[in-house]
């Protein structure tokens, strides 16, 4: 077995030092009835080439996003990741290091996290950021809990433009009840969240660009929340948008949560991704998750450590701000490297390119009879209404090799108001040919349907 270094002779030598007759003797404290005497009913060990063949066979049964025209977004986006990123994150010293609890031998990871926190704070327009969350959805739930701790109020209001999965995760974390208000889906960018804030409201949660692609007025939301003593939590699932759209921090957000996958991380069927969480300096002691801070060593040399850990479970146990232990370290590294490669100039160009592609897509969709574009504003994602239920049309296009977007009914099966809607995204990888093929196929599908 290629991963196990001992020979049988070495095992025997070690047992002799221990003073045990057999390896089984070391399991003497296990109740006899619980010890397996037969091997588990699973395949035997396998050489590398056979394992690889098995996995390749599974992999081939999937259609990769890069195999044809691709327009799915809805919280996970297909962007180009420079080769340098994947090369660097596979270096042993990044890939196979543990959490940097021993700072003297972990300065690489710690300095990277300090740089990551700074990038996230600048990008979101906030003062501080943590060292990452599992993903955007769990980060949103943690932000909501943080807002409750900060305000000592309980009521949370979720915008109808919040990603339905994010809403569902918040509902799971908080439980159903009168303190959680989930506004109905707002595919046309409408919404009455400003009228739903009261004196018991801890926070309102607004996504921009929202799930349907609309850009939301954060300034108005912040003013209304603050007037009632509530906090504004802003969710951004497409972090590239921050290269073109005003930052939530500049518009009055109190906590910003982003899904960072778009920068540095592949689609991966949904994970691992990286959650970004940023806030005001005064709220830092109620933040969940790890924080990296600057200090000096015994010689006075600058160095970095995990800090403010008296918030965390390994110190505070049942009084911790969160039960979180592991974060998304390697995905945060990929984010940070890609963001360093882009820099401010590159991020702005990337964002403009995404928007330019999306405008092209919107204009082309407008030429397809029966297709109605619901957005007056968008970054790189938009919603269209078909004259017929969307899911069968999307499936028909998939069979033709075009992955046309997300039928909203997949996430909202109980809401007839969204049955005919498709959410579509364009990125820098979307070509004119892709857009033309989509329009042609959609046209054919709708005409065939009629």
């Amino acid at each position, binding site marked *: 077995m290629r991963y196990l*270094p001992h020979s049988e002779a070495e095992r025997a030598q*070690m047992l002799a*030092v221990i*003073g*045990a007759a057999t*390896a089984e003797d*070391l399991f003497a404290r296990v*109740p006899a*009835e619980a010890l397996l005497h037969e091997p*588990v009913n*699973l395949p*035997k060990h396998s050489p590398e080439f056979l*394992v690889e063949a098995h*996995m390749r066979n*599974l992999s081939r*049964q999937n259609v990769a996003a*890069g195999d044809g025209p691709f327009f799915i977004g809805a919280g996970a986006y297909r962007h180009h990741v*420079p080769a340098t990123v994947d090369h660097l994150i596979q270096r042993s*010293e990044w890939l196979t*290091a*543990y*959490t940097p609890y021993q*700072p*003297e*031998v972990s300065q*690489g990871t710690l300095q*990277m996290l300090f740089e990551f926190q*700074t990038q996230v704070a600048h990008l979101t327009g906030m003062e501080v*950021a943590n060292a990452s969350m599992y*993903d955007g*959805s769990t980060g949103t739930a943690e932000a909501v809990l943080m807002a409750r701790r900060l305000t000592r109020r309980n009521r949370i209001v979720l915008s109808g433009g919040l990603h339905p*999965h994010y809403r569902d*995760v918040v*509902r799971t974390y908080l439980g159903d009840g009168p303190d959680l208000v989930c506004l109905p889906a707002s595919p046309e960018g409408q919404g009455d969240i400003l009228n739903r804030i009261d004196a018991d409201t801890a926070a309102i949660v607004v996504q921009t660009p929202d799930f349907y692609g609309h850009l939301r007025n954060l300034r108005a939301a912040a003013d209304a929340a603050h007037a009632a003593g509530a906090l504004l939590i802003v969710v951004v699932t497409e972090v590239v948008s921050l290269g*073109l759209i005003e930052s939530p921090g500049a518009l009055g957000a109190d906590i910003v949560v982003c899904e960072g996958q778009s920068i540095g991380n592949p689609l991966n069927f*949904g*994970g691992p991704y*990286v959650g970004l969480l940023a806030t005001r300096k005064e709220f830092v002691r109620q933040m969940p998750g790890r924080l990296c*801070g*600057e*200090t*000096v*060593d015994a010689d006075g*040399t600058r160095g970095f450590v995990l800090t403010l850990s008296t918030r965390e479970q*390994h110190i505070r*146990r049942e009084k*911790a701000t969160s039960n979180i*232990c*592991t*974060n*998304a370290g*390697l995905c945060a590294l990929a984010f940070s490297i890609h963001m360093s490669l*882009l*820099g*401010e100039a*590159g991020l702005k160009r*990337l964002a403009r390119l995404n928007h330019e592609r999306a405008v092209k897509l919107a204009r082309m969709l407008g030429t397809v009879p029966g297709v109605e574009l619901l957005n*007056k504003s968008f*970054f790189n994602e938009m919603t269209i209404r078909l004259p017929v239920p969307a899911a069968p049309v999307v499936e028909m296009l*998939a069979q033709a090799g075009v992955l046309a977007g997300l039928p909203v009914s997949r996430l909202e099966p109980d809401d007839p108001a969204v049955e005919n809607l498709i959410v579509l995204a364009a990125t820098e990888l979307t070509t004119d040919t892709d857009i033309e093929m989509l329009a042609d196929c959609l046209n054919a599908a709708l005409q065939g349907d009629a």
Partner: protein
Amino acid sequence: MSMNNQGRPTGTCSAGAAATGSSLLPNEPLLFEIGDTEHSGVDLPDVEIDGAFLGGFERRSEIDLAGLTEPEALRHYVRLSRLNYSIDSGMYPLGSCTMKHNPRLNEKMARLPGFADIHPLQPVSTVKGALRLMDELAHWLMTLTNTAAVCLTPKAGAHGEMAGMMAIRAAQDAAGQGHRKVVLVPESAHGTNPATAAFLGYSVRSIPARDDGTVDVEAVKAALSPDVAAIMLTNPNTCGLFEPEVIEIAAAVHEAGAFFYCDGANFNAIMGVVRPGDLGIDAMHINLHKTFSTPHGGGGPGAGPVVLSAALAPFAPVPFVRKGELVEHVEGQHLGRITAFNGQMGMYVRALTYMLSHGGDGLAQAAKDAVLNANYIKARLERAFSVPFPGQPCMHEALFDDSFLAGSGVSTLDFAKALIDEGFHPMTMYFPLVVHGAMLVEPTESESKQTLDRFCDVMLELAADAKAGNAGRFTSAPTRAPRRRLDETRAARLPVLTWSRPEELPQAAE
């Protein structure tokens, strides 16, 4: 700059951007000190856009993001990486963390386009292979644990704990047992256990350990009452011991109408040898980043699938794969969704690749070797170190306390830092809390006898030196690492969490 006898710098240049260290052990400036907002390492066309669809929300504030060209970026991250210890460069004897070898085949497979380049919301007809993979992984996990169901989606161990405990809460609510508001947690538990219980609104009742480091079934029985929802028990426990009365504990818990949540952080000791389902557990998370070799990545991402007994299976969160179909919505009892999308697919691929490589037979051998290695270390060190719970074999980790250091002026922390100077990463310190000055050593199955001997030789030499009165070597350690000891108090008192331009820093008061 002074050098030690290995030619490594012991002192360093003054703090700041100009510090460069030596060519082999760099003092790398911050990204923001070498890059600027004009440079970029990505070539992108500069397209013109009109604001017709931007609704007046264009960015007007500056971002202030430093950019690097490609060669500069490579150098920055390669130089930073050299300041890290890693499993590929040496033994990582961190108890409770299972720092085992991370096979590179796993990485190669996770990057196949059919896994890495598929979207979580693609039509299910286009991701049949991904669903088969999830089904296969589930089969392996259920077979190894003898359980009825598994929820793959938790993003890490603590997230799996949350999902498992939520399933318990949902099952009790459905059975009209929602009044149960207490969770029993042994003192030796991981901090995530009480944190998870408290997060879900339970109060935590602590169970003391016996003198032999294990949980007394009578203590559990005494703590059980009609308001107890569950016990959260780690087995093998955090003292590195198998709980000998675990079957009796499970029976008592069930008799009292409560559930048995098992923390699976130490599953590496028993995979293929003991099936937790045979012990009577109802739920247990499995850290794929510990037991099944997915890389720790400097602190994540992890993956924490949670296996469930038949009683809890109907309360698993969505989504899950059933008979090859992806189930994303269930009427009625399911507790909902704990994360967007389908969990840590990239980790599923790595873990299944590892399982197929090892096979059921190899996993059992790995567990036995992990236990053998820990007992070997214990046997070699026990005369010089102090073993808090002697007279019994340990499982996959060996626990020592600090009584062997009494009067030496050397603390567990000092001892651990001295290990760095000898080329090893420290062991887990001060955990579990039930032992004074704990040192928890987990070698894993990946270490050869030669490496274990070198580690033991170093440990014995350090112990002898501490007892000989050479405390200074320990209290000043490390001296051969990229940094000396760091001032953690200062970091916490005046938190500096982001970089600021020098001119933006507040002027010192003095």
